[in-house]
């Protein structure tokens, strides 16, 4: 069985997953995409190969996904991140019926049928509200590291509403909340709830079916995860490394296509 790669070139981060012939993850890589997607894809593949102790020629099939999927020079084919996230989540959690993915510049909710295939989905539009980029801007406004945002949620004592979902307006709102004497933790919690409110609307459009998996970089923010759980009144399954679910799904599809070619 052949070694394959899935490469997810997102707006903020590029992720690569390498699978062995049995579908086991040999290595993965996550790096910032920067402004040159082609170079980011090449570098991420190289990093993953190095971690796995492999060289370029060892990869039999590469599948690109994500916004920059067209920039993966090594790719034998490309598939949308919708399908890849669904496939990745379904392999990790076979009982999944809904995936909430919040990435760098978009968020999506994907409905999955009993067979693990996409039934329907919604994506946010081109506004960055409620995405990873939104959280980055909010972290800057709060003068905290983005990694601290989740912990701050749990230190919150007082409810603060962040009503603006536009990234720019929300930043001004955060500054004015500071001016009114609100604490960082309370504002951070307000931001998480604002994201959850937006996701709730998208979940409503797709139709909530348990189990629900959350993927994407924002799933690393435990505060946002908790806020969404409270809003949809169900627990979220979060993979150990939620950021590579799309690349993992791409690698699974690559593996299937490779098998079909050989088979």
């Amino acid at each position, binding site marked *: 069985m052949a070694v394959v790669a899935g490469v997810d070139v997102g707006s903020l981060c590029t992720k690569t997953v390498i699978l062995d012939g049995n579908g086991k993850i040999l290595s993965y890589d996550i790096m910032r995409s920067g402004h040159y997607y082609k170079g980011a894809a090449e570098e991420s593949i190289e990093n993953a190969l190095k971690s796995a102790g492999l060289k370029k020629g060892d990869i039999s099939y590469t599948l690109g996904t994500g*916004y920059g999927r067209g920039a993966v020079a090594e790719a034998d*084919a*490309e*598939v*949308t*991140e*919708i*399908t890849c996230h669904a496939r990745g989540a379904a392999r990790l959690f076979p009982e999944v019926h809904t995936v909430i993915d919040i990435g760098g510049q*978009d968020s999506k909710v994907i409905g999955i049928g009993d067979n693990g*295939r*996409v*039934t*329907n*989905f*919604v*994506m946010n*539009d*081109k506004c960055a509200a409620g995405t990873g980029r939104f959280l980055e801007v909010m972290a800057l406004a709060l003068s905290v590291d983005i990694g601290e945002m989740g912990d701050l949620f749990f230190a919150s004592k007082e409810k603060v509403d962040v009503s603006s979902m536009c990234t720019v307006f929300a930043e001004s709102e955060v500054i004015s909340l500071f001016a009114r004497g609100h604490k960082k933790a309370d504002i951070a919690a307000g931001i998480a709830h604002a994201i959850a409110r937006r996701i709730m609307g998208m979940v409503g*459009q797709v*139709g909530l079916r348990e189990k629900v998996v959350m993927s994407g970089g924002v799933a690393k923010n435990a505060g946002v995860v908790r806020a969404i759980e409270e809003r949809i009144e169900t627990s979220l399954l979060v993979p150990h490394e939620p950021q590579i679910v799309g690349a993992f799904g791409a690698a699974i599809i690559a593996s299937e296509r490779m098998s079909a070619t050989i088979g």
Partner: protein
Amino acid sequence: MDAKYKVNRLQTTNEIRPLVDKHWADLRTAKERGELVAWASGPSFIFAYAMGMKCHFMAGYAAYCGGIGAGEEVLKVAEMAGDLPETCSYHRLHMGMGEAVARGIPINPQAILPMPDLMVAGRLCPEMSHYAEGLHRRFGVRVLPIDLPAVVDMEDMPRIREFVYRQFKEVVIPTFEEVCGKPFDYDRMSEILSVLKKVATLRNQCWEFFKDKPSRWTLWDYGVSIAPVFYLMGNPAGVAYYEKLLKELQERREKGIPAIAPDGEKYRLYWDGWLPWAFLGKFMRKFIPHGAVVLCGRYPWEFFPHPELIDPEHPVETWADLYYGMESHLVYTFSPKGTVDLIGKLIDDYSLDGLIMFSSKTCRVMNLAQPEVIDVLDKKYGIPGVIVEGDMIDSAMISDAQIETRLQALYEMIDSRRR
């Protein structure tokens, strides 16, 4: 992605441009010839045509501006004048053109129309009221508002039809008589309807070729051929155009020529909402390389789908019936229930694989309940759908990567269900 697909372009569609250009040129120069001009939204331009007025229709102007690449610059003028970008882009387009003329801002001269002697505001939506109000307040245009309610339930149809018919008889016709200073020309309206009946009958025969597998033409071909059943209504050249188109499609069938080379489509799709007039080429480039062909849609199917019901002997009655008759029930398709009924029929008739719900960010009426419509139809027919956000003419509302991802995801969903 299989990149072998290529469009087989129809020859006949090249002949629509001169007809369309002549219509707009005649309209532009109407005042120079001392002719009266009307503008219209909703199904009212036929009354102007019957009175010999030059007339343009709201969506028709948007399609034309999209075709000549003038939409962006005209919209910019509207924004300079204070129109919010979130408002209906058809409304903004007209305000922008009016403001450009009033303020002496240079725009594509082909996009400039004379201000009307009468604007008939057939109000199918709040934006159409906004449009009429803007014309009156900002440019002093005389406006005749009429109400054209959406029909949510078929049992409401007869009384709403009567309400609309009475507006035509008691308000619209007397107003045109007053503006034109002559009695209403029922004979001319009958002639226009006779031509429309011929054109729409031929057009329906052309629609049959969408049922072929592979299809012989695409919805985009029909989109550019829509003027003869729309603002070129009553023009005998429309009959000749559709006769020629029908002949070309028949030849394609005989020779086995599909809409896209080499062997025809992989995905047969439905298009909901307005046509993206300024972006037809952009969308085509997202369909064809994947082997996708759009075959039918709600808006393009609005144009007199039942020509057999057109009765030129009773012009005003038949005009009301074409929109609000129990048999044709065109306005019923504006309701979610009506949309589901219509698309369900189209899925059966045209063997569709998937639905594209084009959601214009500035039009609420057309977008009503699109997610629910997808859900209901998926459950009933087992075919997937996606919502694609955009606009008919405003590129600020179009995100290329988002559209690409949604469409590609639709193709993948169709593939996955075929396995």
